């Protein structure tokens, strides 16, 4: 991607001849979709406009194939809700502009997403505030009125089928992507089918990847944006709760949820801020599904690498590191009691 390509696109969208693009750089992360940051300058009604923007472009290969317009439409639907999200501007399906489809959104400056920084000593005094806000935002996501917000395109499942649909979805991806037999993942999916949770009382908007790393936080303890909505869907609110409880997202050796708050304290704050009653058994179910889902996502990246569809070494590195997720899954299935 070059500044000239972006300038041409912005000239077309803004109907102006004077557009310049600077500081174009690819952001690490965003393994399912390429993320690029840049500064754009143009003239509007006689005054200069300077705007930090983000391009989310379809990748050559990714950890996961996701629908390109889903994320864009969810961002659009969440504008002006209590859920902090960047404003989106254009969804472009024509590959002529930047070789692949993409969308453009506002860059939210002043915050950062890196989990390791959140674990550092300089955040000791604000980690609780960030955790509290994180619980509050999760409750807000789950309280979004998805029907009036035009999120019906996410194909609502029945209350009874939320869990089965997610099991089938990830098992299907495993069938298509795994290069090895993956006995623990297979057994884990069967365990889930035999231990379905109670149906949720309401169908909610599920972020699908709500974890440390997918929100921007500030040194004074605020969360300025929730990002990466490509796995959003309608389902059981406990799915997000289980996902963020996973060991993979803990920071600095802490057992806290996402490295920010004690698990029970997080549950209490989530409920207090309007979230649903936390069903511990359902959380265990979704935490197990989360481990299997993450393993499947990483194996998908590994497949892309082995098939030669990408040279991104992150895919090779993460694909080789799913051993712990398998062991976590066995623990959550309760089959390692007495194991030494």
């Amino acid at each position, binding site marked *: 991607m070059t500044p000239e390509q972006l300038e041409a696109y912005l000239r077309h969208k803004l109907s102006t001849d004077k557009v310049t693009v600077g500081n174009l750089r*690819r952001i690490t992360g965003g393994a399912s979709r390429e993320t690029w940051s840049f500064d754009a300058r143009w003239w509007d009604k006689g005054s200069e406009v300077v705007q930090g923007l983000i391009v989310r472009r379809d990748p050559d290969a990714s950890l996961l194939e996701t629908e390109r317009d889903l994320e864009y439409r969810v961002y659009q639907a969440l504008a002006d809700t209590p859920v902090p999200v960047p404003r989106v501007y254009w969804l472009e399906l024509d590959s002529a502009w930047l070789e692949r489809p993409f969308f453009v959104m506002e860059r939210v400056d002043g915050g950062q997403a890196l989990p390791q920084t959140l674990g550092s000593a300089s955040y000791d005094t604000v980690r609780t505030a960030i955790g509290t806000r994180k619980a509050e935002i999760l409750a807000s996501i789950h309280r979004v009125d998805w029907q009036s917000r035009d999120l019906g395109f996410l194909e609502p499942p029945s209350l009874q089928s939320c869990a089965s649909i997610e099991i089938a979805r990830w098992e299907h991806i495993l069938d298509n992507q795994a290069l090895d037999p993956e006995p623990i993942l297979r057994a884990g999916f069967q365990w889930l089918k035999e231990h379905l949770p109670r149906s949720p009382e309401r169908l909610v908007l599920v972020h699908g990847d709500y974890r440390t790393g997918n929100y921007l936080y500030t040194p004074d303890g605020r969360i300025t944006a929730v990002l990466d909505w490509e796995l959003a869907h309608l389902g059981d609110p406990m799915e997000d709760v289980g996902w963020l409880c996973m060991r993979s997202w803990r920071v600095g050796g802490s057992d806290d949820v996402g490295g920010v708050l004690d698990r029970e304290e997080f549950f209490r704050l989530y409920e207090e801020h309007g979230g649903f009653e936390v069903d511990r058994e359902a959380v265990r179910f979704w935490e197990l599904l989360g481990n299997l889902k993450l393993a499947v996502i990483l194996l998908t990246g590994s497949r892309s690498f082995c098939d030669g569809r990408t040279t991104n070494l992150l895919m090779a590195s993460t694909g080789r590191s799913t051993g712990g997720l398998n062991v976590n899954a066995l623990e959550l299935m309760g089959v390692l009691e007495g194991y030494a």
Partner: protein
Amino acid sequence: MRPTSVEVLRGIRRSLLETILPQIGDPFIQGQVQAMVMLVDSLAMTWDSEAEELRQDNQELAELLTRAAPVLTDFARSREHRDLLHLASRAQTVSAHDSDSLRLSELAAKHRELEAVLADLLVALEELAARNPVEPLLVIRRDLYWALARQYSRRPSMHRRDVTRPASQMAGRS
């Protein structure tokens, strides 16, 4: 022959960390080099022992399947459980054929064969454990899971310890 393969890998790792990485300004390319360091690190750690560990893992799984096969057969016959009977036969067959090869590709192929039977067997055992738990099958199930837990714990993983430790610290691991 010196440097040995492991010494070469460690040298590549040092070069990436000390010579190449400091010259790179682009954060995305830095991330790629850090991934490279982690991969080389992981190769260096497993290079010497991988064949031996795979051989032992295969042996362990084959022994467990050999022990499980008659129990599964008895149970499957008593309940006229055709699928399980077929699985018992597969368990017997896959564990009977062993090779002396120390080639990683052949050991890995054998491992995949064993794990394929194991995957189907564990799915069947999960179904039975939930609906019709029978002590001898629960013991087989437990032994298989414990063996897998030991084997998977040895693999490189970011998800048992703190996944979000700074990349520089991960790369600095000896």
